[in-house]
């Protein structure tokens, strides 16, 4: 089954993106990615631009409401996601614990919902 690791990062982790890529956090991510691929469980994923670049759109009573920034104003913000193919939730939690963001922010593990997808995509 497939799981999404939703990567929540601290402002410091987002700030590390401005470095030249030799910082330990980015180095740990490179190694983590290699380990995922080598274990044959990596399906996909992407980092997101920093939260300030987000724009939130709602339609309320037919009117467009547009807001700068992400929906929730929390310290840790969604910074990216990784999709993994794994046999169990236990295995997914193990890989989440190894994710560099687990020590610096938080990683939420969610199973994908393929039956929902089938209902939508037909």
């Amino acid at each position, binding site marked *: 089954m497939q799981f999404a690791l939703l990567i929540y990062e601290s402002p410091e982790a987002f700030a590390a993106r401005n470095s030249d890529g030799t910082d*330990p956090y980015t*180095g*740990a991510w*490179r*190694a*983590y*990615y*290699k*380990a*995922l691929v*080598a*274990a*044959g469980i990596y399906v996909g994923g992407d980092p997101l631009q920093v939260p300030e670049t987000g724009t939130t759109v709602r339609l309320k009573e037919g009117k467009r409401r547009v807001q700068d920034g992400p929906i929730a104003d929390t310290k840790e913000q969604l910074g990216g996601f990784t999709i993994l193919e794994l046999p169990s939730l*236990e295995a997914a*939690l*193990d890989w989440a*614990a*190894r994710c*560099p963001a*687990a*020590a*610096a922010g938080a990683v939420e593990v969610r199973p994908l919902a393929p039956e929902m997808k089938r209902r939508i995509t037909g």
Partner: protein
Amino acid sequence: MNGSDEGSTHRTIERVARESYGRLVAYLSSHTHDLATAEDALNNALVAALTAWPRDGVPQNPEAWLLTAARRSFIDLVRHRRVAEASEPTLQLLREEREMTLSAEFPDERLKLLFVCAHPAIDPALHTPLMLQTVLGLDAVRIGQAFLVSPTTMGQRLVRAKTKIRSGGIQFEVPQERELPKRLDAVLEAIYAAFGIGWDDMAGVDQSGRELAEEAIWLARVLLQLMPREAEVRGLLALMLHCEARRAARRGPDGRYVPLSEQDSRQWSLPLIEEAERHLAEAASRGGTGRFQLEAAIQSVHAERARSGRTEWKAIMLFYEQLVRISPTLGTRTGYAAAVGEANGPEPGLVVLDGIDSDAVSAYQPYWAVRAHLLQRLGKTSEAAGAFDRAIGLAEDPAVRQFLLQRRG
């Protein structure tokens, strides 16, 4: 009653709860097989103590007080639930026992409880959680954290295991001699797993990790008290004491990870090492070498460095050779490769690593750490970097990750 008295009463309750929890649960469940009710009853008794003891003073025999209160609560709980099939024998039993004696003396049934927790009919993954809960009184939240399982899931699994124990015909007994080695092994494994979690995950910085390691040592001491003649019990205790002796040396003042070979042996705890050595010698005098004695012997050679200033890698390699023969796990084979690498050089060490099934190691961090180290010593920089990446990517402890990132260069 003033505040400090109240504080000391609370501490007394905590101490009695800790020391008596397993004894009381074991005793209350040994005839009824009903672990869940025994735990609920004891928890009710502890809550009652929190009200009664500060008001009336701590009873002369706190454990007997708790047992009486827990027994009453047990009867109430069973009555209340009206569990038709099981309730009558249970109630009868409890009534008899109640009339029998209210003195402090009641049999210590913890050994039976340990064997129940590690029973072959129970999922091995639940042996340690069950022990932590029933013998030590840890709650599902803490156990879940240690095992990287959500508290709800852990709670449900424990409930299912207890239902099985109550209704599945699992006997509360010490196994017969014929089965004993295998059954004892499961108990030892479960205790060691608790120690390993407290050891690896938190690496000496996190309070809850340390506590779990201490709980495991405490469990081994209980087991030794109950089975003083079993050499492997001493072996396990010696192994854990040797590791525990090095806790302070595993981190630099800045929280940096320090590998065993670079630890300052002056920071090791001599009393713990001496205690470990006593148990190991006592175990050896009983003949036969089991897995835990061998692992303890390896740690004993490492501990020698505190006196001699050097590590006898040849001796470690020989102990690993025996260990791999009786217990060819990923862990022992990787440890053997590391020892060969130090004793005979990196090339023979790599040969041992190459003999391990490559599928099995794809998510096994220590394998890649050893491989990276050996390749680096051979000057194979780019191959070493690849192995370092795997080890870094599989590391959970940020300090270990940081250490490997620096080594990788």
